[in-house]
């Protein structure tokens, strides 16, 4: 315990004796973490946005005019067997006309002898099943039913949205790795610089019987401090900004508590790795 107090004291002395290099290390780590926070929050917000939009995706099955009730029953039974369907609604020709009227604000079909709009079934899927692959498979199986004339869902939009989400998540992953490496290297060289400053002291202390681990710990603490402090300050800045600026029709999503704790542990790991490599390679 006494040794631990001494090691903490030594770490504080390192910060106190070299305030400018310490601030420089802290600021560079802060910039890296701010960048990561921004990318992270952007990715979460984009993800949430896509989630909200995708939740509105539905599929409409257009039916032939001469479809008999028994065939309709067959189709609806088939729909009940299909996984992932949250609900479905039969839309008659008259309902379709009423919906068009409501949508356009006027009856476009007025004057026509016959209602040209087809009967249809509007299917709403559970959010987790709204993927281009699943909806494509559902389309293939629904097309097998007699009396189905056309099936519509925003396939190309969905595929594009999925590829965009994938692109965002891959970008976050790559940027995350780049930031991780940059943070480790940044800490490594900050700690090495610190070790160089105390070269004379370390040499004498080793001669007096201090082990490498004992001598390393204050420098590892230094690495952990830069990393954690920068992460916390960066987080507070982002939190302040997000809470004080609102963007219309776009919700900025903050990470969950568990995600924040995980990120804190990751920052701790970055600090430990950077500090450890920095000091062990110099001693």
């Amino acid at each position, binding site marked *: 315990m*006494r*040794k631990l107090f001494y090691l903490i004291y030594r770490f504080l002395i390192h910060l106190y004796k070299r305030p400018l290099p310490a601030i420089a290390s802290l600021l560079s780590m802060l910039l890296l973490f701010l960048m990561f926070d921004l990318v992270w929050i952007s990715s979460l917000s984009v993800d949430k946005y896509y989630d909200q939009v995708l939740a509105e995706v539905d599929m409409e099955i257009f039916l032939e005019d001469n479809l008999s009730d028994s065939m309709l029953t067959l189709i609806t039974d088939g729909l009940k067997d299909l996984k992932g369907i949250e609900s479905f609604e039969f839309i008659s020709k008259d309902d379709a006309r009423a919906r068009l009227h409501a949508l356009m604000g006027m009856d476009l079909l007025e004057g026509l002898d016959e209602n040209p709009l087809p009967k249809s079934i509007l299917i709403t899927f559970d959010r987790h099943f709204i993927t281009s692959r699943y909806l494509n498979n559902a389309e293939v199986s629904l097309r097998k039913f007699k009396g189905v004339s056309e099936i519509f869902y925003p396939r190309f939009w969905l595929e594009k949205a999925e590829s965009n989400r994938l692109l965002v998540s891959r970008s976050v992953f790559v940027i995350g790795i780049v930031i991780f490496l940059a943070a480790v290297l940044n800490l490594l060289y900050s700690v090495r610089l610190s070790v160089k400053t105390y070269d004379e002291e370390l040499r*004498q202390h080793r001669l*007096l*019987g201090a*082990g*490498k681990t*004992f001598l390393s710990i204050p420098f590892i603490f230094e690495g952990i401090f830069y990393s954690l402090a920068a992460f916390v300050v960066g987080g507070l800045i982002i939190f302040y900004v997000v809470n004080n600026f609102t963007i219309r029709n776009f919700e900025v999503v903050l990470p969950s508590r568990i995600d924040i704790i995980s990120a804190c542990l990751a920052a701790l790991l970055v600090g430990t790795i950077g500090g450890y490599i920095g000091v062990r390679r110099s001693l």
Partner: protein
Amino acid sequence: MKHVIELIDISLTNKAGVKIIDGLNFSLQSGKTALLCGPPSIKKSSLVELLIGSYAPDSGVVLLFEKKLNAKKEREVARIRRKIGGAGGIFSLISYQSLYDNINYPLILKSESASSRKKKVLRILADYGLLGKKGEKPGGLSRGEKILALLARATIADQPLLLIDEPMAGLDSDMASKVTDILKGLSIAGHSMLILTTDGSALRLPDAREYVFENGHLK
């Protein structure tokens, strides 16, 4: 009587490929003092580096406190070094730390409490006539005061073996006699000491055995 140092048939070559120790045999019994004399050019301090495990000999065995020293084992070397008090040569004071902090360090390695450390440091500073200089950095001390401070650091944690390199170099007669008195006191107190010096006659220590280090051998 136990041996604190035993060097058996030691050979050591420096980086330039020159043999600086050749078939050296030496032992120091517990509580005894040995003076190792020779001109500065013969690198007597390599012997100190060998004893503290800075490097391993090309051949031969180094026994410290009757245990074989393996210079490659980091923990073992650190543990042995905590039993050795060094002054002069490679052992110097840390220039940017106060005298108090310099002398305090061996006690930190022994995990002593802050109050006990403070008591011991202040007592030894008083014993060595350095109490008024406790806050001074080594740059503000005379050569003699630095030697005294190094001796204080070398003995504060009751290190059983002292390795002292050129304790009398550059001292005026007053300081030389003060250092000699302290070394005599340490010898009487039962410390085992290996003193490397250019001129053995400058040190008149009771029961000290004098060796001459020449051409890598002891005479």
